[in-house]
């Protein structure tokens, strides 16, 4: 089976996650080895995801952690150990 560019694009995410079935992986790899366009799409996607995950992209506001722990101190202090009563339902 020879797959074309559009089929390879369907597998970009699975390829990056190492999540493709062996037979699909083999076809995708074969295609990538010879197709500059699909290789560039794969490289750019991988590169963009690495940049997006960098912690400089989403910076924490100055003092965020201090304010969070101060609030927890203030509220937990008056609450005691969690007893599970009166709390909102939690997802699972």
């Amino acid at each position: 089976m020879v797959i074309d560019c559009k089929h390879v694009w369907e597998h970009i995410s699975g390829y990056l996650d190492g999540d493709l079935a062996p037979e699909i992986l083999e076809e995708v790899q074969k295609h990538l080895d010879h197709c500059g366009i699909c290789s560039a799409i794969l490289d750019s996607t991988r590169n963009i995801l690495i940049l997006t995950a960098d912690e400089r992209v989403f910076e924490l506001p100055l003092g965020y952690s201090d304010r969070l722990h101060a609030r927890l101190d203030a509220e937990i202090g008056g609450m005691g150990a969690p007893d599970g009563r009166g709390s909102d339902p939690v997802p699972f």
Partner: protein
Amino acid sequence: MSAAASAANTGCGREARKIASILAGNTHEFHELIRPYERGAYVMALSMLKNEADAEDVAQEAFLKAYRGLRSFRAEAKFSTWLMSIVLNEARNRLRRKNAVQMESLDEPPGTETRISPTLLRDWREIPSETLERMEVRSMLRDAVSALSPIYREVLLLRDVEEMSVGESAEALGISQAAVKVRLHRARLMLQKRLAPQLKKMNSKRGWFGWL
């Protein structure tokens, strides 16, 4: 057992012991328990609410809710997954309350059954992470994530920013693993489609290192 799995088990075991200790009355240990998740909670809330003050407030509320509900936490789930699902719920509730009219739909956006085509490139010159020193690049990336529909944004942040597994992301979002994979694939291609031309254009105008 692999070294990674063993380390994860140790981490989970440590958290389980800490949770037991908090429930037994050592409430101050809650601070330490949540420290690794402070950042993820804020980023998730910010990406949903797009407002720093709201995001900070939602993160605080979510941690308080987690504290109050700690006894209902099931040990077979991962604490981080449970916590992130509380943050997501809190952020969604805040959105509903705050802006019911302009609220973004949490449902599948129309037209998503169609295939997403990435930006076609003949070659890609690696963009080094040093370029993130530039505010405009950080802002470009944030804008691209913000522009995704919520269902794609959530899954992208859980998987690619928080580095949660497919299974954990599925549990936190309350969807199937197959849905996580489909949404993630679309989210990643949408980011590539939008960002690749922008980044390539900047890269070709001036070498990255030339303007660092």
